[in-house]
Each structure stands twice: as structure tokens, then as C-alpha cells.
């Protein structure tokens, strides 16, 4: 058994990059990758490599081969056709590249295992880790390393943050990347690993679990390549930071004839569900949930229980929130006596002092602030859900500021529910950018809180 080649530090944060197959012809993958490195302002050295011998590409001196560069190269990004890949990979090895991302497709995914085996052989010969082939590769928001061949004009790049996203699939990966940008929460790293010829999800999860710039890992997978190895390191990783996972391919194949009731019930998907719940993964049921959970974990502290204090400026939404809490295994508690007494003194007589705390359609920043600070100090409450309908006369940017203020104290997890379009979004995007997750429905917020509760239990914060 050869030593596992899995140190991807220089692939993720390279000081120098050679783009093999770089081009400036419209519509080529090699053009998009070069353009991105130029557009996002990559801080390291960039060497375009093209066999045609043109002297420069996008204003950078170009080389016929990576061997002509004669400078240290950390990462080789390879986007030449499949049948030319092993040759240039071999040259990258000779040039002592510290790693390679192979974007090119046409390997085991189309039955060319022979071509892929050749890549593995070269990787072993030079002890050079490879991500891919058939992948989007890597994006690191801090070093601005970006091997994605998705033009910046077509897909938004998220702001810098603590969520790292790992996806086997390139297409799911890129659509989630676009969605993350829209959600207004921050990304640390994006890694799409495709066929996983050398570096696979076990190596990537291991790396991210130790990465100080990552505080949440969001994972899309269709199947584990090394399930046994994954079980060996899974608890270490999930104890270090939350992993939100979406498993694609949920339909049971049912090919194996079962001789027992157990075997007929314990199909491969149920085995995955069992693995996820036993090893502390937070499982999402779809792309939306992946985002809902990602943003609560990125910004909010863990909670000490499942009692949720709801503040609302709309009565009906308070009722929906109470339902949503119940359906998701959460509790709407009673206010503690002295907190209730204080609130009675502060709030006008139209406000009933009980949860959900309906502070009225005319509530402005004063009432929101008072309610938030009361619930923050109430020992009966573990998490705060603030329903803020910006359509009401009292709600404006001062209410948004009041919420951001309360959340910045990080005493308890706070989430916001806000439903609406243009005017609402102008405020919620500021709230989210300030690190408070916003959800469009009480149900979405309750599901996210429930995920936080689950992980807080796993971590032992909830006894």
C-alpha cells in the first residue's frame, strides 16, 4: 500500500500557479481560468502555459512547457484535453510542482480508467497530490486562488467568511456557490474534487477540520469512496467543527436480494443516514436546508437548550412560529416571572406579556431593543427568533440596527425571520452581512435552530 498523498495545503493556498492549457481565445476553459486569476486579483505568481508558443497571454509572459518556467511552482492547474493530460502532469512532476488540479474530463467517468490510472501512477512517482480529474477545483477567498472555469460575470463570488464548501459534483457545487453569494454569508474555501483519483473527501475533510479559516464545513456527496476510513476520522472532524451534509442519490437500488427483514430495511441510504447521525454530521434534506444550516453555524454560538423565545411584530407570524417550533422538536417556553414583570413596565398596554411576544405592528427600534434585551437575559430562553416584518409602519433601518446590536453581544443564538421583497431585502441583506442569519419563514428558521440544537447536544453543550 503506497503512502497516501494528501497534503493539499499548496493546492489550496499556492504562492505560484501555472495554468497548463491557458488561452485567450473566447469560450475556452483555459481562457476562463486565466481570466479569473486576473480578475479576482490572485496575489501570487501566475504562469500561463500553452504549447502553441505564443509569447504572452493576458499580459503575462507565456511558456510552451512548465519546464521552461525555471521558478518554483506550487500549483499546476491542468485544462488540456484528456489524452494530453498525463504528459503535462508528468512535466509538472518534473518541475517539482507541489500539487495539481486537473479540470479536464474524459477519465473514469466515461470508462477511461486506464487514463486515470496513469494520473495516479504519476502522482505516486512524484509524491504530488492531485485534485480531480473532472472537477472545478479549488477556490480560496483569502489567497484568491481560483481554479474555477466559471466566469466572474456569470457567477457571483461570495464574500470572505468561515464556511468551506466541499462537493464531489461540479454542477451542484457551482450552483451552491452562486446561492451562497446571494445569501450574504461568507465563504472560506470551495473544493470540488470530481473523480477523486488521488485526493478524496476523507483527505479534504481532514484538511478543513484543521484549517483555522474554516468554522463550518458544508458537504455535498453522492457516495463515500473510502467509507471505512471516513468512519475512522469522522468523529474527530465533527467534534472539531460542524459538518452539514447533503447526500445525493437517495433512491435505493435494491439490487441485493434480502434473506432477512433486517437486510430489506437496512438499504444503503439508511446506512448513510445511520452513519451521519451516529457520527455527528448534520444532514440536510435539500439544497435550501444546506444553506439554512450553513449560515446559522457560521455566525451563531451553540445553544444550551431547545427553548426558543419568539419576538414578533405580526401576530399571525407568531402563531406560525409556535407551530414551526413544535413541529421541529423545539419548545416555546414561559417567560420567567421577573423578566415578565419588567417587560410589563416597559411595554405599552396593547402588548401581551407572553411568548410569542407580539410587540405590535407599530413597534419601532425601542420596543425591539427592549424585547431583545429582556429575552437575552431570561434564563428560560436558549435561542431567540425575531420575526421582523418590514412592511409595518414602525420597522425601518433603526430596527435592523437594534437587531444587529443585540446579536453582536453573542449571548444567545439569534435568528431573524423576515418575509418580503425589495424594501425588506434592502434591510435583511444588511442584517445578514452583519452576521445575523435571516430566514424567509418561521419554518426555515425553526429547522435551522433544530440543527443547531442537534449539534449542541452532540458537542455536549446541551446535557
Amino acid at each position: 500500500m503506497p503512502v497516501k498523498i494528501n497534503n493539499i495545503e499548496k493546492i489550496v493556498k499556492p504562492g505560484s500557479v501555472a495554468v497548463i492549457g491557458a488561452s485567450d481565445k473566447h469560450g475556452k476553459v483555459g481562457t476562463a481560468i486565466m481570466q479569473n486569476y486576473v480578475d479576482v486579483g490572485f496575489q501570487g505568481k501566475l504562469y500561463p502555459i500553452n504549447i502553441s508558443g505564443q509569447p504572452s497571454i493576458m499580459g503575462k509572459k507565456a511558456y510552451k512547457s512548465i519546464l521552461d518556467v525555471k521558478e518554483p511552482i506550487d500549483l499546476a492547474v491542468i485544462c488540456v484535453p484528456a489524452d494530453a493530460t498525463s504528459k503535462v502532469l508528468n512535466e509538472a512532476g518534473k518541475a517539482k510542482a507541489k500539487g495539481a488540479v486537473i479540470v479536464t474530463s474524459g477519465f473514469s467517468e466515461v470508462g477511461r480508467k486506464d487514463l486515470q490510472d496513469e494520473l495516479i501512477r504519476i502522482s505516486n512517482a512524484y509524491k504530488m497530490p492531485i485534485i480531480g480529474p473532472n472537477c472545478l477545483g479549488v477556490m480560496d477567498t483569502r489567497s484568491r486562488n481560483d481554479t474555477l472555469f466559471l466566469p466572474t460575470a456569470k457567477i457571483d463570488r461570495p464574500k470572505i467568511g468561515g464556511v468551506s464548501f466541499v462537493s464531489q459534483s461540479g454542477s451542484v457545487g457551482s450552483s451552491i456557490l452562486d446561492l451562497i453569494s446571494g445569501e450574504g454569508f461568507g465563504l472560506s474555501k470551495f473544493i470540488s474534487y470530481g473523480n477523486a483519483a488521488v485526493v478524496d473527501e476523507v483527505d479534504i475533510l481532514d484538511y478543513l477540520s484543521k484549517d483555522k479559516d474554516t468554522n463550518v464545513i458544508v458537504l455535498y456527496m453522492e457516495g463515500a469512496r473510502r467509507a471505512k476510513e471516513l468512519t475512522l476520522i469522522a468523529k474527530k472532524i465533527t467534534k472539531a467543527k460542524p459538518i452539514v451534509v447533503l447526500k445525493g442519490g437517495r433512491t435505493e437500488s435494491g439490487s441485493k436480494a434480502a434473506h432477512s427483514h433486517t437486510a430489506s430495511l437496512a438499504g444503503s441510504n439508511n446506512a448513510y443516514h445511520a452513519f451521519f447521525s451516529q457520527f455527528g454530521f448534520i444532514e440536510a434534506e435539500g439544497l435550501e436546508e444546506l444553506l439554512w444550516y450553513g449560515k446559522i453555524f457560521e455566525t451563531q454560538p451553540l445553544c444550551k437548550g431547545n427553548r426558543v423565545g419568539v419576538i414578533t411584530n405580526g401576530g399571525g407570524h407568531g402563531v406560525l412560529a409556535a407551530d414551526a417550533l413544535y413541529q421541529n422538536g423545539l419548545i416555546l417556553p414561559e417567560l420567567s416571572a421577573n423578566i415578565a414583570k419588567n417587560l410589563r413596565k416597559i411595554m405599552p398596554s396593547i402588548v401581551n406579556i407572553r411568548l410569542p411576544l407580539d410587540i405590535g405592528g407599530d413597534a419601532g427600534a425601542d420596543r425591539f431593543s427592549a424585547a431583545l434585551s429582556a429575552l437575552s437575559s431570561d434564563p428560560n430562553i436558549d435561542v431567540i427568533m425575531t420575526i421582523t416584518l418590514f412592511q409595518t409602519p414602525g420597522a425601518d433601518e433603526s430596527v435592523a440596527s437594534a437587531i444587529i446590536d443585540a446579536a453582536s453581544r453573542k449571548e444567545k443564538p439569534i435568528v431573524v425571520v423576515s418575509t418580503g421583497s425589495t424594501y425588506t431585502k434592502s434591510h435583511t441583506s444588511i442584517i445578514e452581512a452583519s452576521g445575523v442569519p435571516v430566514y424567509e419563514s418561521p419554518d426555515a428558521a425553526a429547522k435551522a435552530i433544530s440543527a443547531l440544537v442537534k449539534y449542541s447536544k452532540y458537542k455536549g453543550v446541551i446535557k
Partner: protein
Amino acid sequence: MLLNYNSAIKILNKYKIRNVESAIVSTYDDAVKFWNGKGMITMKVISDKALHKSKNGLVSLYLSNPKQIQDAFLILKKRALKLKLGKYKIVVQRMILGGTEIIIGGNIDQQFGKMILLGLGGIYVETFKDFALRLCPISKNEAFSMIDQLKSSNIIAHDAKSRELIASLLLKVSKMFSENDFVEMDLNPIILHDETYDAVDLRLMSDKG
């Protein structure tokens, strides 16, 4: 293939997993001797090919006199012949009245290896599909979390004592499944009764031909 009945019982006993008193009989006289004038017995056909015994009429219950035992013996033989089961055996057991039926099972997943299952048992297994699954071996906390995951947790484990009973049984079965080369395993039903339990039916499949 299905592990033979006596070897399977021996393994259960080795891991101190309680099972109801039973015997393989080749004549109805043997069956009457086993009954020995005490209470009720059940009689059933066991075979590689008979997974759904009740559905196929391969189980007789509430037998409490020699005539009933003799009739049941002859009927089961006739049905086994009709179903072309090939090799089969007839087993008699003491009958447990009342109690709650659970299933504890084992399976090998292609990705994750040995798995253990707990569910509402007997004829409800496939109707309600109320079960919890974990990778082997499990810890005691995981055993409790399996119980809590069931919709029927209040039915099968209604107090601290019964939770403890099921959790420790799960640990024994997890150990047995981890240490032996079974590929599939059903202990179904295990009947919870009188503050204890008894495995009533079992299928242990080994991959050794």
C-alpha cells in the same frame, strides 16, 4: 446460508442472550413429550426458503393438548411439502402469552460494514418500518439513542428499567454480530415480557456455503 437451528441457539447462549425453551422434533410424539402437559406450545417450520412463516401458514400457536399437537404436526408437514421447501425442520417452543415484540437484526452494508438494527417487531416490522440503524459496534449511549429514535419507543421501552434491558440486549447482540461471520441476522420477534425478554425466532445467515 441459514445457520442450523441448534448452532444458532448455541451462539445465543454463548452471548447470554435469552431465548425461549425449544426443541427440534421429528415425530409428533417428540412434540407431545416436549409439551409434557405444561401450558401451551407453538410449532413452526424452519427452512432457508421460508422468510415469511406466518403469512405462509407455517406456524401453529396455542397448542395445549396431544390431539392439537398431532394435528398441527401433520398440517405443517403437508404445507412444507406443498411449498416445496426441500430441507426443513419442525421446531416446538414454549409459548409466551402477551408482551411486546421487537426485532434486533444485523446486516453488512457494502460501504460501512456491519450494522445493527432495532425496531418494532413481529408482524409490524414491514408495515410500520419503525426502526433505528447504527454502525457496529455500538456504545451504550448509542443503544439508548436507537431506542429514543423509534416512534414506538414509549411502547417498547416505557420506563428506565425496560430501557436498560433493551440497551444491554443491544450491546450483547452488537458484540455477537461483530465477533461472528454472519452476513445477515434477524432476531424477530424478541418478546419483552414480565420485566425480561426472550428471543423467539431467529435467522442467522452465514456466507459460508
